[in-house]
């Protein structure tokens, strides 16, 4: 078994995927706690569709996919937040509108130029082969920035997540921190979707924090547990997908579901 795993890591594409995946899982879990508690889970999902649209357009126009997609999705995140704050259209329908719209535009852009080739498929469902050396460098830098900003603004993020009105009334710049959370989420989504796929990346954001919340009673322990679950599930997922020759993104998502069920069971046991 150990030999098997050693052989696995002798493939440089797997090592690359593991480094990026672990960092992205960490970012997703940290931000996920806040997003889930603020009832913004769908934002992660909406952003991944926007990211797909942006990547399809970038490919069609011959731009570097990551460098084009990160800023586009960041802008979309700010827009989504503004739209869901306004009372005219309810938040969830606004997100559904933007995400299906972006998906449609992306598919059109892709089919008009190259057809639905494997590249686009790998963006939708994820591919472990997708990461180039340059992508890895960019992903590592960006995810370290996300983690650092999260730690620095941890107390403010808690205050804004727990009670926006109180935070605003006592002088915290709520809008700034909401925007920060949304932009960091968009970066995480773009970095993670190459491997997990646009359709599966939000599982990294939602599942670990929900699992942690079944058991933990403090915000800090929810954050730490979610991060640990996320990294563990990703690492397990990539090993299982190598051994069983299954798609990495789907495998990681299914393992996250198993972890959620286990934690839900433990949580029920503790409470009774």
């Amino acid at each position, binding site marked *: 078994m150990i030999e098997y795993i050693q052989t696995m890591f002798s493939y440089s594409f797997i090592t690359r995927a593991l480094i990026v995946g672990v960092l992205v899982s960490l970012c997703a879990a940290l931000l996920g706690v806040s997003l889930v*508690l603020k009832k913004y889970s769908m934002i992660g999902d909406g952003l991944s569709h926007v990211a797909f649209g942006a990547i399809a357009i970038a490919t069609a126009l011959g731009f570097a996919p990551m460098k084009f997609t990160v800023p586009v999705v960041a802008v979309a995140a700010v827009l989504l937040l503004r739209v869901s704050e306004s009372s005219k259209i309810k938040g969830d329908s606004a997100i559904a509108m933007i995400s299906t719209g972006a998906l449609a535009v992306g598919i059109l852009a892709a089919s008009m130029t190259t057809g639905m080739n494997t590249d686009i498929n790998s963006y939708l469902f994820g591919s472990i082969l997708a990461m180039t050396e340059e992508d890895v460098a960019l992903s590592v830098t960006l995810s370290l920035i996300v983690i650092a900003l999260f730690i620095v603004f941890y107390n403010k993020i808690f205050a804004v997540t727990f009670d926006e009105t109180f935070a605003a009334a*006592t*002088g915290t710049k709520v809008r700034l921190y909401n925007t920060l959370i949304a932009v960091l989420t968009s970066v995480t989504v773009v970095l993670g979707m190459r491997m997990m796929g646009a359709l599966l990346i939000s599982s990294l954001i939602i599942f670990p924090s929900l699992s942690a919340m079944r058991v933990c009673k403090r915000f800090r322990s929810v954050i730490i547990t979610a991060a640990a679950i996320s990294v563990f599930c990703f690492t397990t997922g990539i090993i299982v997908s190598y051994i069983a020759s299954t798609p990495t993104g789907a495998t990681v998502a299914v393992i996250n579901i198993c972890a959620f069920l286990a934690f839900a069971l433990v949580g029920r046991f503790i409470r009774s």
Partner: protein
Amino acid sequence: MPLITCENVSLGYEGLTVARDINFSVNRGDYLSIIGRNGSGKSTLLKALLRLKAPEKGKIIYGEGLRQSDIGYLAQQTPVQKDFPASVFEVVLSGCVKSRGPFPFYSPDDKKKAHDKMALLGIEGIKNKCFRELSGGQQQRALLARAMCAADKILFLDEPVTGLDPVVTTELFNIINEMHKNGMTIVMVSHDVHCAVKYSGRILHMNGGVLFDGTAEEYKTSAAGAEFIGGHKHD
């Protein structure tokens, strides 16, 4: 100079004016209750005083160097909080979030303050308990402790005793009274006119504007007071 002065303030939602021509001021040491029926504009007025909502017309002037970080606020609970995984200590400490300006972490002083407030409200023993597992009264104490951590000069309370039993209600009012005696300015929105008259020094009765502004004693004998207090007894 008063802490807060409203000059010809009109308030509304999406073009619909709910209260107009509001003129009053909050002075240091006041214990002011804002009362009125649903839709009378009392909650909107509180939001305006907290700078969460801009007035449609008029000016709200803050005196004596009153900054937002001097303000404590006991808000009505939101649905998000009902299922929030945070310990009592984490919630209370978050009241100190503005104490160090842009600096990201809490100081030992902040933590001591949070402990002191929890001790004062008798929730030190449950500081590691999860907020969502507390009773309504305990949750309200935790939120009051958080508001006390934030409040240097003035404390705003929005329906602080809604849904609490009479014993807990009396306890909470006693704590607020104690704070007022120690020099805190209190502004409370309440639909419970009897408690407002019993505990606060000054009454502001809203009904599309200011219907009455004076001491609680004066209010009891005023036309507005007689009707509102009397009306409630038949409810």
